[in-house]
């Protein structure tokens, strides 16, 4: 009377699509290795221990902020307030450590608390105000930048007191602690996203808010948590950036390394994430961050003018956006 449920090999077209998606998603591994080899051959001093450690330090700063940013993106929240959080946290760090003279652990704790507060503030506007994250965080970023400007009196705060940089960049097995912190962030992120209920809910909320809601996922809480994680990693990065530069970073623009919203966004998109949430694997972002850092570092060593490097990075973002949109159309 009834046909059996169709035995299901994927139809040819679907299988092709899945293969192409696999390529788009994992191409970043190949591209990064190729780029690395190219610079080993072409760029002087690229393949030296000193430079490799430099690359890792730069990558760690961009990497940590990107890890949290990734979580927000996965939950479907484009968090544009990164710069604002960086600004508040860097000023908090510099003020407390240099001018107030607070101990190092307390300074770090307060900087991270500032990040959590910023994330909660974002969550309040997004969830309670029912405003799209992209717009809401653009607005909150303005508030945060203003707070940072007010706190610092519009001045860059230089840190003369010893102990911050030394402690934060202490070397463990020859590798600066910021690199270890980055790996730690990615391991925690990986476990959370793939092995916990919260991770499953983050993916589901980002992929389909309504379906998640109907299935009983506490979507609002998930969004709040994702925004706090994003702000928290930005604050952590701010501490490291401040320690590295021995001064507060005006307007959150990082002096050392390229830690900003655009880098994080480029890395996230190059890593195969959808701008619309719910798709992507955090470990690929780590590779995408390394790719961007190697690109900048190698070109610099080849004496390519900074302007050109910025243009190249700009094109990387354009390419990443195109890839992301293509991907979204295919799924």
């Amino acid at each position, binding site marked *: *009377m*009834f*046909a*059996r*449920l*169709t*035995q*299901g*090999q*994927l139809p040819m077209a*679907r299988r092709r699509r*899945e293969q192409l998606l696999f390529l788009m998603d994992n191409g970043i591994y190949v591209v990064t290795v190729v780029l690395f080899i190219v610079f080993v051959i072409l760029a002087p001093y690229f393949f030296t221990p000193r430079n490799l450690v430099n690359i890792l330090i730069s990558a760690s700063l961009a990497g940590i902020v990107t890890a949290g940013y990734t979580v927000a993106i996965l939950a479907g929240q484009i968090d544009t307030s990164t710069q604002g959080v960086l600004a508040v946290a860097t000023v908090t760090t510099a003020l407390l450590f240099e001018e107030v003279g607070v101990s190092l652990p307390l300074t770090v704790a307060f900087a991270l608390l500032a990040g959590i507060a910023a994330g909660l503030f974002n969550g309040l506007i997004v969830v309670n105000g029912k405003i799209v994250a992209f717009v809401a965080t653009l607005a909150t970023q303005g508030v945060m930048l203003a707070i940072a400007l007010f706190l610092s009196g519009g001045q860059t705060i230089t840190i003369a007191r010893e102990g911050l940089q030394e402690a934060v960049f202490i070397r463990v097995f020859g590798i600066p602690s910021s690199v270890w912190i980055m790996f730690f962030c990615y391991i925690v992120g990986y476990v959370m996203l793939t*092995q*916990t*209920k*919260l*991770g*499953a809910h983050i*993916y*589901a909320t980002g*992929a*389909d808010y*309504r*379906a*998640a809601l*109907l*299935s*009983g*996922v506490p979507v609002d809480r998930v969004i709040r948590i994702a925004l706090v994680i994003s702000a928290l990693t930005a604050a952590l990065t701010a501490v490291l950036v401040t320690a590295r530069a021995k001064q507060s970073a005006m307007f959150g623009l990082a002096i050392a390394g390229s830690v900003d919203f655009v880098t994080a966004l480029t890395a996230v998109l190059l890593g195969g994430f*959808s701008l619309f949430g*719910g*798709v992507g694997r955090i470990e690929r972002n780590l590779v995408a961050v390394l790719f961007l850092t190697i690109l900048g570092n190698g070109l610099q060593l080849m004496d390519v003018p900074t302007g050109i490097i910025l243009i190249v990075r700009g094109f990387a973002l354009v390419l990443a956006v195109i890839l992301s949109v293509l991907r979204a159309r295919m*799924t």
Partner: protein
Amino acid sequence: MASEDVILETIDLDKSFGAVHAVRTVSWKVYEGRVNALVGDNGAGKSTLIKLISGALQPNSGGFRVRGQETRIGGPAGAFGLGIAAVYQNLALVENRDVVMNMFLGSELTRGPGQIFLDHKGMLRQAHEVLDDIHARIPNVREMVRNLSGGQRQAVAVGRALIRGGEIIIMDEPTAALGVEQTQEVLQLIDTLRGQGKTIILISHNIQQVFEIADYISVMFHGELIGTRSRDEATEAEVVAMIMGKRSP
């Protein structure tokens, strides 16, 4: 009809939205282990009645009797607690997640300290069991839902209802968007569920299909329940006449 067990009964259920009287003192009996079809024209009140039963809406007056016990259905969670699970028309599946994660979305199996870790193995095993039980042919439960056919999706959504302990499964126009072959898959799925003693509430526009699969056919018209017929004693012409508001004696 008298020998049949009633598993769920609505008692003078009434629901208005402002001036619109969507459900008018409906007392409906749903028979255990049977396919109970609910038919009626657009706007007849089928969807509202179903939402009241699945806890998505609260009635203005009236109540429920489930397995002989008078009760109220406080919300979707309350409905789940009573073994009532709705399979929504759009299925509420997440396209970019795999079959297992969709089946357990919102009711994930967990382990470890504080139950924060997912029990991937347990979910995989249970997903296989449930899908095997309903004879769903989904070759790879790690497949993304976006790659499934309409019939397979329906199976995943029903699997989710079963995992949540669904004994009374509400299916809202399950074949509305499907082709001929997939429609047959879904009808077979309904037949399988009935074979396992599940109670099905089926909303459908398709009279032919209703006659093919349902045991009881209830008709709504302008918010009222105007009659229930067993399939064997009804004719299509009679049911169509009832849908258009003609009460038969």
